[in-house]
Every structure is written in structure tokens, then in C-alpha cells.
């Protein structure tokens, strides 16, 4: 659509809106791929399909990084949203660290190739499911922050809920691991992987907490 140059302000705004949406899409996609990757790993180990998922998450992470930098640069060079600029910056960087954690956990599997006994596989998948739900809710809450501030709490409380659920599953899983007859080294390794996954939910909760404050700031 051709617009006169006097509307360039609005055109730039539209482009930036799209970039923010794309950034949030990347995080959501990365979490869904993460879920698939863990499923694949628990079912068939470190297969080619798993590596492919890891590769996809890896690419999403670097695209998200590029997008984040571009958004931040534009916000500052065009002195947009002076009041919420710092908050938006904080939000984007924290969301970026969520995707980093997802990627880090998958790299862990790829490098250490832990052997997960049959008994625990279902719990690993259940834990992953909770974590991914938390990330998904966080992405929705973040979208609402930009488009419909009043809806932020509706999504935020779900992040808290899934984080609690993830904690519950991870505690149960860790207890089961350490009460088993496995060698201590394997117990420690399995515990590390539980924590790798659970960390993502914790990080999501931290971001949600900040988001709640940013929301209060904007509605006062």
C-alpha cells in the first residue's frame, strides 16, 4: 500500500509491530520444537530427527536474537515509547533468555546423551509439557502487554500455575531417581537434566513477575 511520506511514522510503527510479533512467534515455535525434541529423545534417543529439532531451535534462537537487536535499536534511535521503552527492553531480553535456556537444555542432551530408564520417561515428557505450557502462556501474556494490557493477568496466572506443576513433577521425578538403584553418577546426571528442563519454567515465572509490574506501571 502506497502511503505519503508524512505517514512514515505509522509505516515504521507497523513494521516494528510485525517484528515484535515475529519475535514472540519464534519463542513459541522454539518451545513447541523443544517439546517434540524431548518426546523424540525419550522414545528413541539421540536420533537424526532429534538433531534436526535441535538445529531448528538453534536457528530460531539466532533469528530471535537478530529481531530483538533490531527492535531495540529502533526503539532507541526513533525514541519511541519513551515511558515504556526500558520495560519493553527488559521484557524482550528476558524472553530471549527463555529461548536460550530451551536451546541449552537440548544441547545438553545432544552432548551428554543421558540414558533415561524406561520408568522415568513419562515423567520427563510430563515435565516438558508443563514447561512448554508455561512458556506458551508467557508468550500470550507478552502479546497482551502490547495489544491488550487488561488481558495480561489472564495469561500471567497460568504461567504461575504451570511453573508450580512443573516443580511438583520435577520434585517427584528427582525423588524417584535418587530412591532408585542406579549408580550415583547417573542419578546426578538425570537430576541435572530434570533441572535443565525445569529451569525454563522458573525463568518463565520470573519474566511473568516482571511483566506484572510493567503492566501495573502502564495502567496507573
Amino acid at each position, binding site marked *: 500500500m502506497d502511503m505519503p511520506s508524512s505517514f512514515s511514522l*505509522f509505516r515504521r*510503527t*507497523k513494521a*516494528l*509491530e510485525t517484528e515484535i510479533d515475529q519475535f514472540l512467534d519464534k519463542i513459541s515455535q522454539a518451545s513447541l520444537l523443544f517439546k517434540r525434541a524431548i518426546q523424540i529423545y525419550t522414545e528413541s534417543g539421540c536420533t537424526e530427527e532429534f538433531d534436526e529439532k535441535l538445529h531448528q531451535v538453534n536457528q530460531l534462537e539466532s533469528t530471535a536474537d537478530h529481531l530483538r537487536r533490531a527492535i531495540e535499536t529502533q526503539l532507541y534511535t526513533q*525514541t519511541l*515509547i519513551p515511558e*515504556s521503552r526500558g520495560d519493553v527492553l527488559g521484557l524482550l531480553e528476558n524472553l530471549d533468555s527463555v529461548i536460550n535456556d530451551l536451546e541449552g537444555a537440548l544441547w545438553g542432551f545432544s552432548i551428554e546423551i543421558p540414558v533415561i530408564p524406561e520408568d522415568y520417561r513419562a515423567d520427563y515428557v510430563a515435565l516438558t509439557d508443563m514447561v512448554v505450557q508455561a512458556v506458551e502462556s508467557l508468550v500470550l501474556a507478552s502479546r497482551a502487554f502490547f*495489544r491488550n494490557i487488561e488481558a495480561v493477568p489472564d495469561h500471567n496466572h497460568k504461567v504461575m500455575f504451570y511453573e508450580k506443576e512443573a516443580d511438583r513433577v520435577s520434585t517427584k521425578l528427582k525423588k524417584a531417581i535418587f530412591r532408585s538403584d542406579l549408580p550415583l553418577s547417573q542419578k546426578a546426571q538425570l537430576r541435572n537434566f530434570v533441572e535443565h528442563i525445569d529451569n525454563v519454567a522458573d525463568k518463565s515465572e520470573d519474566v511473568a513477575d516482571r511483566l506484572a509490574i510493567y503492566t501495573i506501571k502502564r495502567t496507573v
Partner: protein
Amino acid sequence: MEITILFFLTSGLFLGWALGANDAANVFGTAVGTRMVQFTTAAMICGVFVILGAVFSGAGTTETLGKLGSVNALGGSFMAAFSAALAVYMMTKLGLPVSTTQSIVGSIIGWNLFSQTQTDTTSLLKILATWVVSPILAAIIAIVLFKLVAVFLRHAKIHLLRTDAYTRAGLLLAGAFGSYSLGANNIANVVGVFIPASPFTDFHFTDLLTFTSTQQLMLLGGFAIAVGVFTYSKRVMLTVGGGLLSLSPIAAWVVVTSHSIVLFLFASKGLEHFLATNGLPTIPLVPVSSSQAVVGAIIGIGILKGGRGIRWRVLGGIGAGWVMTPLLAGLICFVGLFFLQNVFDQKVYRPVPYELSEPAIERMEKLGVAVGNFRDLHSRRFETAIAIRDALKERTGLSDEDLVTILDAAELDLMVVDATGIDSLEKSRLTDGQVQALRSLAGERYPHRWMLADALARISEEWRPREKNKINKIYNVDLKARLAVVFRTFRADQ
């Protein structure tokens, strides 16, 4: 002569500069204070629109003299403009938004006291009313507007970035309009007095396009205001935009828009005329001022948010500044006039004598004044307004209004209708019929100026004021402005 006028003009330009430095904050203060618009962008837009407003709308009544027009000698106008500017400059240095108009009224009162001219008490009451009425009206409108905007935003669900872009555009638009009317409304005060003595000549670009000497003078005045905006307005902008209360960008827009709404609804003669001619109820015109309205709107937002964020010390300072401005201007003017007259030997006022002459008494009687009360004073002459007022003070049965009527009728202001004067008026905004009427009076002399007005009204319909009502208000004010030009042209004692 030219050099003197140019010298006197400098005080008008100083006033323009002070006006720009202080009043730009009313239209762009909140935008700059919330960092939504950069200072240089704001100053650029403000400067351009002030100049446009001054040149194109300031000439609405080209004959307009502004408030300083009541000062009857150029030396006096110089000092009045200078002291008003100095008072505003001092307030600007303190970062306080004040009203330039009130500063001018203050300095005119100083001149009145010095020249022993009667001061119109209503102008004083008007200032007092402005301090209370403007902020209250603006606060109410700001609260209502903010609530409406909040409801709208809740339902519209606009993206944060888009809200930001719209707010920014809204602030720029409101600022540009505000700057335009700032230039249009205030240019008369800056250079109005100098229009009759303009050192410029008309430029003709083609047969169609003429750049009159008045417009050139207004352009110069507009530049003075723009320079004030660029060089010195940031401080007051920051007080308005954040010193008094930390504002969100949307609140910033609400503030500047409410201030414009207040000025439009309660001070616009054009709106009153429009409503009256369409048979709609009119909104009573009340004395409102831009600076007071902006501060009121900010306080309104502050109250809406529970009042915790308002910095009362800053507000107290601003209030003190409002009171100080006219007082300071009056004082500086009075002292300045003393020096200008006694040390620099300049004429700072033309003495206005009064005589209870036969025609004057007749006029008073016609206007309902009980002239029997001062029959012994008939045909006596008084050298100043104060003298005649004192002589009449003890008489019973004379109201304040009667006193105004008597002073008006008795003022001696010799009018000599001469051909050169009529020729010079041909180029002004007078109609052919009006000039015709003047021609038929060529050679006549009138001791009181109202006698010339009466004579003109007898000859021509076009010089007759219409019945007093809201519809005819603008017509009558315009007629008065034209008469003022005629009086200035034919005044014998220049």
C-alpha cells in the same frame, strides 16, 4: 524619526521574545517534558506556526493595536512593553509559566498611575478571575477527557507502539494549532502599537500578491517570538511537562488538548457568534488564559490519580509567579517611566484634559447621567482624569458607571478631519461608503472624539453601530477598531 521608531520597536521585539520563551511551554511543554517530542522538533514546529499565525491571522483586524494601544505616547508604549517583557523574562528564568497578557495589563496599570489616567477596575478583576476560573475549568475538562480516553483505549485495544505513534501525532498536531493561535492572538501585543509608525513599505510581488508593511512588521514580531521559543523556552517547558507532575504521554496530550478546549469554548468570540447566529444557546465568555489553563489541566490529571504525584512546592511557586507578574510589570513600568521622562527627556504620555462642555453635558444627559448633581462644574476644564474624578467624587447619586460615562464624554481629544488623513485611510480596511462619509466631513473640527463618531453615524449607515446583542458583537467590535484608526488619523495633538 525612523531611528527612534526602530529603537522603540526593540522593546516590542523583546516582548515577543519573552512571550515565545514563556508561552511556547503551554503548547509544547507536556510533549517535550514526556520526551515524546524532542525540544528542537517542538521549537521548529512552534516557531514556524507562530510566524504563520502572526502573519496570516494576526492581521485579522489589521488595525488592531493590542492592549498597549491604550498607552497614548510611543515612549510610554516602549516602557510598557519593556517592563511587561522584563517581568515575563524574570519568571521564565525561574521556569514559571505565566501570562504575558497579564504582565502587559500590569504594566499598563503602571502607566495609568504614572500618567494619572483612570484604571478600568474590570481589567484587574478579570486577572483575579483568570487565576481561579481557568485552572478549574481546565482541570474539569482534563479529568473528563482523560476518563474518556482511558475508556476508549480499553475498548479499542490498540498496539502499544501504535498508541505511541498516535499520541505523538496528536501532540504535534495540538502543538502546531496551539502555536498558530499563539502567534495570531499575541502578535498585536508585540508589534500592534508600532503599526501606525511602521518603518516598512508595502512589497508588491505581482498585481495579486502584496506583502503589506503591517504584515512585514508582524513577520518581524513572529520571528521575535520564534527566537524566544528556540533560545529560552526549554526551562518553562520542563516545568510544565514534568516539574509539576510526572505525566504519561497520553496525559500530556490530554493536558494540551483540554487547554485548547477551554480557550475555544470560553474565550472564542467566533464560537459565540456562530452559536448566536444559529439560534443556539451560547456559552458564557469568561476570562481564561493559556498558562493558567495548562497548569489547571495538569492539576486535574494529578487529582484524578489521587493527588499524590503533585509537587505542591512547584505549584506554590507557579501561583506566586502569577501574582508577581502583573505587580512586577506595573512597578518596573512606573519607575521606568519616571526615568524615561525625567532623565532621558522622552514624552511618555500625552496629557488628556477633560472639559464638561455643553455638548458633553448633553451627551451625558442623553445617556442617563443626572447632570444636575454637578451643574456648578459645567464648562470647567480638568487637566487629568484623576482631577475630574476627585471633583465629582463628593457628588451624590453618581455610580461608577456614570463616572465612566462622564469621563468618556468629557475627554478633550481634538479631531481635525483633513484630506491627507482621508487619503491615507483609503488603503486601509475601511469600506468605500465609510471613506465617502469621511470625505463629506473634510475640514470639520471636533473637540471630543465621540462627536466625530456621532457625525459619521448620522451620515452613513456603515458607521452606525448595530443593536447590542451577541450576534452583532463582532460587528460592533470591528466598527470600534475602525473608529480607533480614524481617531488616530485625525487626532490634532500628536
